[in-house]
């Protein structure tokens, strides 16, 4: 249905970003929190508007903007993620010398980029959404301006990101030249018709996939991730771990879903994606074993998670992928939130050695962090187990048993480094003094909600699965 209502959620977010930028100039440093409240209000408004559009199938701009259920589900996911990031960032940015009101505005713009990406099937729009997301992310990574690592992270992300965009645009140009179309249905028709110059089309498609593989950090296009994750301010890292990944996978399933029942598993790209998935899981988890910096370890862990998600794509399990992404959002933001809890003014504790004895000194934070780690490692009854279980079962049903064996092996490897943090927290004598800033109610709220999410989805996932079923119906 063609309706202006399809644009309104996006307009709310962009409008709020502009107001934040404007107010930033007039607000005193002590009052910067009002910008956070304003942003949260905009997120709630956007959430209500999106909820009203559920099952509406609204479109606008000649179908370039499609607010189908899949787009809406991912929009909800992004709204929750950005709300969490704002809440865990409020205190953090004033403690860690990154107190710029633009933090909230840029986050909202990044969110608008994500929303644009997931709510279109036209590659020009998807590319522009990706650029809005990336450009805001580059400067978010460099917000701690006095910190060399943060600046390094911004520059690296910018260079590698531009490189990836170049691949993407080049691929799109070739695709447009051969298929005379840039919207996904048009491209699907082109590849199904199978004319003579399909080789060039496959080259173009391959370049587009490489561009997206950069953005979602799939081995061997992952080199930027550890440095960027380590240097960026921790709330921003939490956002990086879920936002770009979820949007990239959303585009991937939109592109590949029409093939799931039509010879996808014998196609040319299948072997390529299969190898990438296996490599990503193994390399991510093996390199993570050697990391002593927790943020770097999480970077490699998020690379490995991209590999598990790729299995869901290969198995043609859209519902499994969305469920996985939902659970990963709660686990990842919860884990980064626990890292932020262990910080004080001008100091963050990110080395493994800092965690010795934390479990007894700060029992609540230690316990909550341990739950997130167990969930990431995939222990029942946490949601991390269920996420992997659903994806692996779907893959075995599709005859991908060798890949699932690799995945199980990779998860077993990952158990070692997640448990290592828990061992440090509970079984080592503290080596150095760790003192943290305790007064941070917004952060504890997020930790509690993430904990609730991880346990709720692990024990009673029915409601969310019902929504996801409706969302995936829009894709096929």
């Amino acid at each position, binding site marked *: 249905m063609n309706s202006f209502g399809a644009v309104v959620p996006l307009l709310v977010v962009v409008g709020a970003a502009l107001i934040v930028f404007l107010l930033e100039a007039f607000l005193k440093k002590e009052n910067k929190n009002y910008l956070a409240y304003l942003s949260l209000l905009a997120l709630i408004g956007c959430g209500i508007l999106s909820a009203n559009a559920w099952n509406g199938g609204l479109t606008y701009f000649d179908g370039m903007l499609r607010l189908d259920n899949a787009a809406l589900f991912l929009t909800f996911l992004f709204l929750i993620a950005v709300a969490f990031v704002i809440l865990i960032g409020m205190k953090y940015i004033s403690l860690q010398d990154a107190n710029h009101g633009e933090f909230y505005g840029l986050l909202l713009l990044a969110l608008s980029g994500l929303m644009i990406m997931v709510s279109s099937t036209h590659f020009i729009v998807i590319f*522009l959404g990706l650029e*809005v997301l990336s450009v805001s992310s*580059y400067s978010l990574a460099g917000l701690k301006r006095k910190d060399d690592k943060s600046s390094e992270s911004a520059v690296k992300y910018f260079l590698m990101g531009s490189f990836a965009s170049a691949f993407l645009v080049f691929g799109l140009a070739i695709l447009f030249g051969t298929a005379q179309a840039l919207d996904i249905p048009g491209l699907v028709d082109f590849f199904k018709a199978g004319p003579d110059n399909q080789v060039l089309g496959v080259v173009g498609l391959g370049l587009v996939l490489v561009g997206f593989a950069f953005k979602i950090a799939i081995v061997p296009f992952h080199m930027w991730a550890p440095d960027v994750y380590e240097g960026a301010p921790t709330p921003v890292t939490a956002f990086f771990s879920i936002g770009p990944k979820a949007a990239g996978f959303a585009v991937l399933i939109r592109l590949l879903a029409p093939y799931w029942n039509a010879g996808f598993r014998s196609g040319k790209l299948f072997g390529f994606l299969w190898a990438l998935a296996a490599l990503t899981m193994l390399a991510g988890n093996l390199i993570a074993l050697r990391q002593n910096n927790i943020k770097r370890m999480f970077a490699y862990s998020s690379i490995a998670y991209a590999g598990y998600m790729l299995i869901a794509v290969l198995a043609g399990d859209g519902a499994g992928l969305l469920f996985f992404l939902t659970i990963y959002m709660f686990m990842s933001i919860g884990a980064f939130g626990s890292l932020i809890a262990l910080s004080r003014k001008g100091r963050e504790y990110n080395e493994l050695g800092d965690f010795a004895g934390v479990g007894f000194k700060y029992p609540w934070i230690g316990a909550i962090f341990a739950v997130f780690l167990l969930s990431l490692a995939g222990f029942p009854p946490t949601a991390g187990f269920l996420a992997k279980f659903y994806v692996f079962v779907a893959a075995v049903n599709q005859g991908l048993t060798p890949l699932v064996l690799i995945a199980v092996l990779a998860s077993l490897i990952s158990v070692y480094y997640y448990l290592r943090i828990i061992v440090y927290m509970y079984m080592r004598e503290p080596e150095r003094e760790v003192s943290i800033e305790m007064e941070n109610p917004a952060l504890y709220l997020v930790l509690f909600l993430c904990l609730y999410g991880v346990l709720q989805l692990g024990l009673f996932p029915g409601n969310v699965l019902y929504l996801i079923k409706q969302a995936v119906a829009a894709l096929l």
Partner: protein
Amino acid sequence: MAILLFFLFAAFAVGSVLGMIISRNQAYSALFLVVAFASLGGLFGLLGAPFMAVVQIIIYAGAIMVLFIFVIMMIHLGEGISAEKKKWTIAAAVFMGIILLAEIVFAVKGAPAVPMAGQEMAGTSPTEIGRLLFTKYLYPFEITSILIIAALVGAVVLIKKREGE
């Protein structure tokens, strides 16, 4: 008349590119490149693609050249590259040159009949492009403005002066 202009622009283009390669001063090279882009713009105009002609001059001769000159001014390249590196550069240049030549040969062989000089091709006029931008491609066009705001704010955040500094 058109033939005469064609040879004039072509001579300018080839001559200025030669000048760009030969001159030792990088700033001169950059300026030669401006002349080359401007004459290429003229060639596009002769082919009946006024939009391409203008874009060639505005974007390449204008924006990109300013960027080049800034980079040349900011990083002093000094004596140039070492002899060891130069061997690789030449090898790479020859390799790229052959690929480019092959591409041009294929393109010329596969190209449809060349449109007559002075005759406008469909869908390339500025009016047509403008109309498309504000009808079919309005949504991407509007997203571009969000993109520019994100880039501007991002750049300002990273370089602005701190309070009390």
